[in-house]
């Protein structure tokens, strides 16, 4: 009987642990930011070809 109870206790502990894991899902949040820390933009110029021509702003 004692062994039965102790094994039962072990099972319960495992079940509780699993339940705990299941209920606390990894949390992701809304985030935004830069992917290139060195990006300094582009200077667009009218004289160059095309409407979106420009040179890197280094």
């Amino acid at each position, binding site marked *: *009987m*004692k062994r*039965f*109870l102790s094994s*039962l206790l072990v*099972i*319960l502990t495992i*079940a*509780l642990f*699993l*339940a*705990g*894991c*299941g*209920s606390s899902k990894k949390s992701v949040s809304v985030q935004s930011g830069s992917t290139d820390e060195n990006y300094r933009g582009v200077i667009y110029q009218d004289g160059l070809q095309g409407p979106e021509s420009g040179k890197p702003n280094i």
Partner: protein
Amino acid sequence: MTNWEWPLVFFTVLSQMAVGYLALVVPATAGGKGNHARIYLLPAGLLAAAMVISLAHLGHPENAYRALTHLGSSWLSREVLLFGLTFLLLVFTILVARAANQFLVRVTAVLALGSGLLGILASAMIYVLPARPAWNNFNTVLTFYLTAFLLGPALGLFMQRFSPGPAAGVEGSATGRALALLLVLSIISSLSYLSLLAGAGPEARLTVHALVASPWWWLRVVAGWLAPLGLSYQLYRKGHGSLALTLALLILLLAGELMGRALFYGTAVPLIEGLL
């Protein structure tokens, strides 16, 4: 998933345990034997605790008395009345038990039991609401009574091992068999309940999904049904369980019913969610 409603979980489970315990001890003491005052103190205390806990659910507990004022159509009013009556009858029983008027004791005890059993019905009917498909069926009533009839005998069995007293009739083998049967019934009714919901509307299906996806549901199945089933089978076979076994049985069943009740409140998807 809306709210776990812990005050309601404890209130309903504890009040049902109290009535289940009464259902066990009232017939057993019908012969007039035993210390009634001591026996009825436990259910009276449990019921009082349950009702005090239920106040925590209210936004304005100081005005809880007003809940008695709409008996005409409110099951909640009726529930408060019936459990209040049960408690008063138990107190009265304890008081007259000292005066040793056995007939009066028996009458008031039986009345308390009757009022308590009706109180469970009122409790259940509160939740039989078309707006909550998961509740709006016979399962709610069945579940509430099953809680009473599982926890009552388990409590009785434990109390007898803990402090062997005059309230006999809590025979190990028979109780074990009864609990095992009730647990099997719980599992079967729960399975049929889930299939019923799965076949019902979209909100009911959401409840099924929430239940099956919840780790607490599976913990409840293992700890509240399967493990106690094993224990009660042991009890039935051996006819006499140790204090540890009866305690384990009580704790497992109580934990299982509490978890089950929390899921009952937490996963009842309202009809309006169908719009979201």
